[in-house]
């Protein structure tokens, strides 16, 4: 387990900023204002990046490298080529700080949770002035985060789209907890 290098931090933040926008800095702000206040840090362990309280990260140092399976929240993994891939486990953090959002209707929930992209017919509501290829968090109509993706069209263009046209490309959805349990976590 180690903190991220400069390069890794940049890759990660670029990725996160795609979803959170300016509120990215809230991610790393101290939790309270006391002098020794706890704050969240990023830790790398077995190619996976974890978002975790500093106090927790410090405690985890007593666990041997090969015995430590996970800590805090797993954001995703660094691929061998140095890119960063967000996992569905990062959803609570993205949802908390998301800039653009899409709400799907009840009839669109299951198709999305089974790994489908979001069609225009299924969109119940979405943030205005959303540009193309922008990271968005997907919610159900009762504000439960279900996953996240990338917009296929800007809001304006999407208006002209026919109902079966794809508006958001899925990147991760909650169904992965069931579908990809074997590959999602670092327990080889």
């Amino acid at each position, binding site marked *: 387990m180690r903190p991220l290098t400069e390069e890794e931090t940049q890759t990660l933040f670029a990725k996160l900023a795609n979803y959170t926008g300016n509120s990215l800095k809230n991610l790393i702000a101290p939790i309270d204002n006391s002098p020794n206040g706890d704050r969240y840090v990023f830790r790398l362990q077995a190619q996976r990046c974890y978002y*975790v*309280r500093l*106090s*927790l990260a410090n*405690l*985890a140092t*007593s*666990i*041997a490298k090969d*015995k*430590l*399976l*996970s*800590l*805090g*929240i*797993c954001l995703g993994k660094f691929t061998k080529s140095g890119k960063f891939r967000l996992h569905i*486990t990062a959803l*609570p953090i993205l949802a908390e700080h998301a800039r653009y959002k899409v709400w799907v209707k009840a009839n669109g*929930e*299951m198709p999305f*949770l089974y790994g489908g992209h979001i069609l225009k017919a299924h969109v119940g509501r979405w943030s205005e002035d959303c540009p193309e290829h922008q990271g968005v968090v997907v919610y*159900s109509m*009762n504000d*439960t*985060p*279900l996953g996240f993706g990338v917009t296929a069209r800007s809001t304006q263009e999407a208006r002209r789209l026919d109902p079966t046209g794809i508006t958001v490309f899925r990147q991760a959805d*909650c*169904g992965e*907890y*069931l579908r990809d*349990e*074997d590959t*999602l*976590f670092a*327990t080889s």
Partner: protein
Amino acid sequence: MGVSRRMKKQGTPEPLDEAHFTNLKRKAGMSVMDARRESEKNAPNPKRRRSNGDKRKQDEKPKTKEAKEKISGTSKSAGSVPPHRSAIKKSKKPDAVTLPQSDEGDDDSDAVMNDEFDVSGSDTEDAGMGDALDSGSDVYDSGDDHAHRAMFSEDEDESDAEEKLTAANIVGLTRKLDKEQADQEAEAAAELQEAALQTNIEGERLLLEESDDEAEAVKTNALLAPDLQMLRQRINDTIRVLKDKTNFAKYAEEGRSRAEYEAQVIKDICLYYGYNEYLCQLLFNLFSPSEAFAFFEANETPRPVVIRTNTIRTHRRDLAQALINRGVTLEPVGKWSKVGLQIFESAVPLGATPEYLAGHYILQAASSFLPVMALAPQEHERVLDMASAPGGKTTHMAALMKNTGCIFANDSNKSRAKGLIGNIHRLGVKNTIICNYDAREFPKVIGGFDRVLLDAPCSGTGVIAKDPSVKTNKTEKDFIMLPHLQKQLLLAAIDSVDHTSRTGGYIVYSTCSVTVEENEQVVQYALLKRPNVKLVETGLVFGVEGKTAYRGKIFDKSLSMARRYYPHTYNVDGFFVSKFKKTGPSPTGSTAGVTTAPKREDVDEMDVDKRPVPETAEESEDAFGGFDEEEDEEYIERAKKAVMRKKGIDPKALKGHQNKKKNGVNGSGTSGKKSSKSK
């Protein structure tokens, strides 16, 4: 002939009732109307199927006074029944097989003895009783049953064909049905007669012991399915005899001891429910006979499905509403839990609803709430869960701690840890560190916890309903190995706790097993080995008290503060929960506590983890013959030389130097060992 397919699939049969048979008939191609008519007709004699055996039995002993006359009237050969007639049809034939009247001498005497029994009592129970009495013909019965079954399946095919009939041959079908009906009517009449006969066989003496030749016959026919109805009846009767002293005096045969009855009922239970003999004995001894029967019976029915609301994400009321909208019928699991919801039926798979995937709830047995409720972790504490997969209890703890503090979720099995990590992330738990140690290593990895939950790996005798394989695959060895592991784990758990913790200092030990070996004995062991812990109230509102004495073993009085849960009393999985409070520092404290004990004892306790049978460690050491220091010296020397050679050092060249060094090494080695122990 092996056990028939139907027998393999069906498990233990439920008590048969008429409705069941109407179903069967319907399936076999009979129209609803027919079935209904038939069921009406059969109403006075509800246990239809049983009459099979009864009739046969009747036939076997027409020595009974009335029996002789009546049956001789209707007598007819069963052999004449064509092989592809259905079981039901056959049972309805006004048959009466003239079978050898040879065996069953005692039966007859019974029957004669009880002539005065009321005819009107000729209902199901009598029929069943007759079955029990008929055990002598067991072998024949089971063989016969098989024939029935084979016929039955064939009959279904036949019925399929029937369905395909065109209008052209409906006439033929009608005729056939008419004939069937006539048969049935005649049958019913015969049955009435039989019912009258039956009463003659009913007796004060309830059961028949298995005769030797029968036992042998059973052995030779081990592959045949046992006559389950009869078995069940015999179990019932034996339990009745064993119930208490008055019952025993009243019903027991003379010259037959309680032990014999017990042996028989255990044997029967093994056969009926499919337990292995050792486990059956173990579980039977845990309860009174009637309670044991209830326990075995409860293990055959599934426990209710329960989900736990994830209070990190949602509230129970909201979740219940969301699920009801999806067509789930549910209600709160009980007053004792604020987060549990019991599911009665569901139109959707509960493990794949959007709410589930969003982490609003987790499927978790009601009994698994208990240890966490007993542990009652507080916010900002450091907690250890020693065996955490699949994470139900860990996430429950996190929810109680409101995602603050720190939870070390350990599991020794990496493949199970996958599900654990998944659940933890799905439920939005942020305060866990998941590791993969053997939990016995624990105080060494990190100690100083405020609370430790040890939900120990166990034999699973409390969750047989969930995992019936326990019935057969747990042997005597498991009940030595598992308690041993549990004792080590519990000591490790105790040592990992910080006794100076302001809010905590608690250990909860729980298992999903009901045996005393894995529960009370383990706790007792820990109390003896660690005088710095004491049992405290679990804070759970229901449950049976822990045992303070069991089959001659006396446990600590405080064990009554532990709680046991049984499937037959609370309809939760069998479970054991005990809670310790640590009052002093662990090994040093405990060694200080036993200053009077010889030093060797001290060493034993430290090394306890490596010993196969810790309780008798001292004795076993003697049994091994102790150590011969001088002889060992030689081996140690040789091993050291080998090591040096491996490293490329010539041991001869350094001999003098080495000798000098050796003493030093030895000294420091032992002292090092000691210091590490005293930590």
